[in-house]
């Protein structure tokens, strides 16, 4: 199997891919980026915490016009994963307002986004609907 790297260092690959956050030991605030100190309480001790891989869409937009080099359309969202807000794209869903909903239940998935000159594959993450979109029509 090709060697893999995650798109960002807070994505943990392996059997059960998941995100991790730096949790402030003193106040519990969580961060995905490298921190000098806690923005909430100024403490400087952090531990790694696993973030839930299922959550609920709290906000989304369907981006149809983006900076050069960014493929559109895509669905950008904020997902509430057990109290931790996660920024991610929604994947495996039609990018339109008939298929994407506020409050939608989603789960983390990973997928390759390319291979470099050394044969290393980069792996990104997104969130897909927990329940595949019901077919339109019916009653």
């Amino acid at each position, binding site marked *: 199997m090709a060697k893999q*790297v*995650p*798109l*960002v*260092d*807070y994505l943990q690959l392996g059997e059960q891919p998941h995100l991790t956050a730096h949790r402030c030991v003193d106040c519990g*605030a*969580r*961060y*995905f*980026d*490298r921190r000098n100190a806690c*923005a*909430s309480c100024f403490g400087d001790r952090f531990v790694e915490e696993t973030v839930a891989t299922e959550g609920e869409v*709290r*906000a*989304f*937009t*369907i*981006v*149809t*016009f*983006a*900076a*050069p*080099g*960014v*493929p*559109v359309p*895509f669905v*950008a*969202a*904020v997902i509430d994963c057990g*109290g*931790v*807000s*996660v*920024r*991610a*794209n929604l994947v495996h869903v039609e990018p339109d*307002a008939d298929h994407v909903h*506020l*409050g939608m239940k989603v789960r983390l998935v990973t997928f390759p*986004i*390319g291979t*470099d*000159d*050394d044969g*290393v594959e*980069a792996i*990104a*993450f997104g969130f897909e609907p927990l329940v595949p979109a019901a077919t339109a029509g019916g009653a």
Partner: protein
Amino acid sequence: MANDDIWILGINMTKFGKHKDLDTVDLAAQAARAALADGGVTMNDIGVIAAGNLMGGGGIGQQLQKQIGQTGVPVYNVSNACATGATALRTAIMAIKAGETEMGLAVGVEKLAGAGLLGGGGKAKSDKKTWEPSGRYGAVASIDGRIGTNAMPGIFAQVGMEYGHRYGGTSFELFARIAEKNHSHSTLNPLAAYTKRMTLEEIMNDVMIAYPNTRSMCSANCDGAAAAVVTTGAKLKTLSKEQQRRAVKVAASVLTTDPWQEACQVLPDVNTLTRNAAKQAYEQAGVGPDELDLVELHDCFATAELVHYDNLMLCEEGGAVDFFNSGATWRDGRMPVNVSGGLQSKGHPIAATGIANVWEICHHLRGEAGDRQIEGAKVGLAHVIGLGSACGVHILERSGL
């Protein structure tokens, strides 16, 4: 008038739009000279200059001095995203309140026509030939478009959608109707970048940028400048009755940043710092939201205007949708919002916006707003927010004379 009150003595905004033949300094000079003339003073009266410009090469204050008067006074070049203009105004006010001088000039200017999408992409992140983690997320490739969006229309779309998720009642059409209002208001504003009324259908069928924001629901990139001369009550008393009559009292001047909130690292929280600024401003001014005759708020996107009705406490908490649906924020409603046309139609030359909003309020308080005059306006509020974030709120009162 109390000696230590702060007053706007002169103020001006240029026409917003495309100024092909004017550069950044030309526009700043035009607004600054007009603000001085409006106040009946000259550069000899100015003891401090605060100037803002984001997209130019830097040092706008000194470049401006070289065109309108090099008197050797201190210049503060300020940069605070979309709150840059308000920050310049606040900087001049702080210098006066500190007792360092009795009159200051604040200027904001931007050349932005044709700038396109702001905030997205960043430096061309050619995905490298070997994956190498960099930055605070240890990212091996650009995250814009792969992990959400960095572009403003999508960020502010989510801000509006989040409000809808929390309180309900939002829809694509509701947000489009907010833009319909602002495009309608701008037909009465000869200085607006766009003065054409747009129907709801035209707005909803316009090019989709980031659902639910179509192009006409996004702030209009354009060129423009605005400038204000501020002084103390003590100084104003020494000036003419006419200057005293047209002067506008700065009843509150507040700048805030966002305090830490759980989600603010993921989606900018434009709500908490705006609410904090509004609370402080109402307290400073000793007026409540019900006493405002008009409001110019930072409608950088239609989705943003909705949440700021709530953040500025113009409505009950969670009640922004009902408030808008009541017609309150149209120019003939009980709380006119963005009668200038707002950023969506008047335009948004970034660093000028925070002073241009104040100009609009002053224009009404002086009874000089012509066809779009809000009759009898006594008190108004101007709000801007720049992502990062910074929020400026100014409450302005008509002179009692």
